[in-house]
């Protein structure tokens, strides 16, 4: 039975499902990376995702347009981000705690809207699998890389884009300097507040899309609390990736693939108690990080509100 684990089917299954499962983590964690790079910790990702998931689902269901759904998720996420930005930048509120507040608000509000506007679990015809002519037919590789829907591909395109913005543009330089040394950035004429508003709203928008990727692309349903802790894992993955988009990608893939591996372990009937199997991705993520002994420092101003010296 254990040897079954090394068969081609299982390997392909794990890789393909890892790539799919990583999608919502990628959107949310890349968004969070921008925020943290500019010095803002947002623990409210899960709430933004839930509201985004609901907005996307509801708008797609009522208008029949998936792209309007994605747009709605982005708007809802951005509005949540805007509120978070006002509270943390203008009011200097403690970031971790306001994030928890926004999480609770999103959790409750999305469920409330769901109950009032839909009332029961329904399905929507979500983004279809997009097959790439020629490539999708390659045995094995086709299923792993070219059997997904559009939002999955976009998530992976987001990674190099985020890397480019953060490392190769003036905007990225400003973001990083605001996160490392806001006083210096400020004295050089960079508006700390404006940069932070930008990154938090961007983070909210991406979290909204993360929700949409669940409700209208991967699962095509909405249910209360459907993210089930996924947003918190996304925040953790930012730390795993040491605030680098490629690192976040690695963490998201690792976590998702181990999760998929544990599903296979159960399916193949390998005698491990189900709860122990479910633990695996969490334990291994910590262990990998321990083994890699990263020496990367967090952005120095992370969680510190900025106040110009009087």
């Amino acid at each position, binding site marked *: 039975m254990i040897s079954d684990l090394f068969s081609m089917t299982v390997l392909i299954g794990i890789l393909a499902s890892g790539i799919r499962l990583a999608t919502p983590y990628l959107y949310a964690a890349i968004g969070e990376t921008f925020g943290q790079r500019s010095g803002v910790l947002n623990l409210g990702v899960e709430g933004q995702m839930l509201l985004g998931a609901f907005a996307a689902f509801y708008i797609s269901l009522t208008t029949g347009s998936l792209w309007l759904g994605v747009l709605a998720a982005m708007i809802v996420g951005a509005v949540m981000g805007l509120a978070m930005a006002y509270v943390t930048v203008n009011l200097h509120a403690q970031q971790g705690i306001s994030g928890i507040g926004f999480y609770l608000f999103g959790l409750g509000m999305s469920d409330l809207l769901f109950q009032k506007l839909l009332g029961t679990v329904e399905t929507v015809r979500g983004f279809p699998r997009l097959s790439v002519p020629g490539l999708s037919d390659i045995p094995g590789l086709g299923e792993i890389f070219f059997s997904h829907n559009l939002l999955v591909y976009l998530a992976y395109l987001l990674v190099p884009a985020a890397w480019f913005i953060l490392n190769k543009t003036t905007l990225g330089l400003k973001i990083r300097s605001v996160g490392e040394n806001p006083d210096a950035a400020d004295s050089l004429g960079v508006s700390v507040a404006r940069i932070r508003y930008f990154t938090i709203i961007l983070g909210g928008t991406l979290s909204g899309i993360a929700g949409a990727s669940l409700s209208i692309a991967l699962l095509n349903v909405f249910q209360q609390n459907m993210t089930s802790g996924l947003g918190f894992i996304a925040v953790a993955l930012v730390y795993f990736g040491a605030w680098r988009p490629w690192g976040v990608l690695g963490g998201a893939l690792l976590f998702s693939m181990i999760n998929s591996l544990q599903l296979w372990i159960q399916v193949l009937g390998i005698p491990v108690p189900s709860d122990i199997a479910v633990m695996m991705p969490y334990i291994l993520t*910590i262990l990998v990080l321990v083994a890699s002994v990263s020496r990367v420092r967090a952005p120095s101003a992370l969680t510190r509100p900025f106040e110009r010296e009087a």
Partner: protein
Amino acid sequence: MAVKKAPRSDWTSRLIDALMPVFATLAALAVGAVMLFFLGANPLQAYRALWDGAFGSSNAFAETLVKATPLLLVALGICISFRGDVINIGGEGQMIVGAIAATWVGLTFTDWPGWVIIPLAMLIGFLGGAVWGGIPGFLKAYFNVNEILSTVMMNAIAVQLMNFLLRGPMIDPSQAELASKIPQTARLIEAFRLMRWAPTRLHVGILIAVILAILVYILLFRTTLGYRIRAVGQNPHASRYAGINVKRYIVLSLLLSGAFAGLAGAIQVYGVNYRMITDGSASGFTGSAGFNGIVAALFGQLHPIWSIPASILFGALLVGANSMQRIVQVPSALVIALNGLVVVFVVSSEFWRRRRQRRRLAAIREKEGESPPQAVEVKA
């Protein structure tokens, strides 16, 4: 921390500061009133139910205190770790592990007297939480593993560990024989249960928590250990030059933080449920106290003593909201959203409190013509 004597006319101003979280809560409830109105509920009736549910009778107030007990204990741990600049969001997992360890004591040594087992179980619960908090602390100090990541992961691991134990090795023997196999442990014998003020569910846990709040205050502000934890939190580099072993204090602050959460878990078992039951999630057992305790600590401005009223306020809100759901029959989702609003409003109200504080200091400076004591910014 020398407190500068405030001018006499100042105390009303200070009172307003202290009540700021209350004002913010009221403002959040006002927004909630609009939501209630749109849901077709009468906001006045709803808030009346909330108030009555939390303070309306001796039983209601007892329930509020029962809810506040684990919040306060977790909050005490948070006061320590956040002041040490370590963000512990692993309270849920630490509560679970503390509770498992304490329950094991109570179910194993059944022929021992209660006065031995109860303190022993509390101690073991405390240690269990310390281990679960200490691991992320150790990983942070020596392997640079960020504590937010590790505590989030450790929460998930603790839940599965609980499910595994309660389904298998620790399952109630009477359930093991039934087909339904409810995942719960056996009940603690009566001698091992914390004293209650019948007929309410209020148990001595609240007293333990309040006494510990005082002890944590002393620890943080009157001992070298506490001073060092805070010093490391405020400026690790300066502390290192001052000869403090920074790594050790990072481990210690997470370890202590976890320990208090573990004790909260043990007290939930020995004071409220008398057994562990799982519905498969963490909050089924903890009631999300591991998260809400963070909120309570910050309501109390990371001060152990202020955390007492803050925990009671937050506990009242949770208990009252449930009662509001029952009486007005609003969806529980509204209650959750409302809690979120309260948290956001309260944490934002800090802004005005700080601004008032600054203005007051400026006024003192003007009056006395000397430089004021530096305003101590609460950093987390």
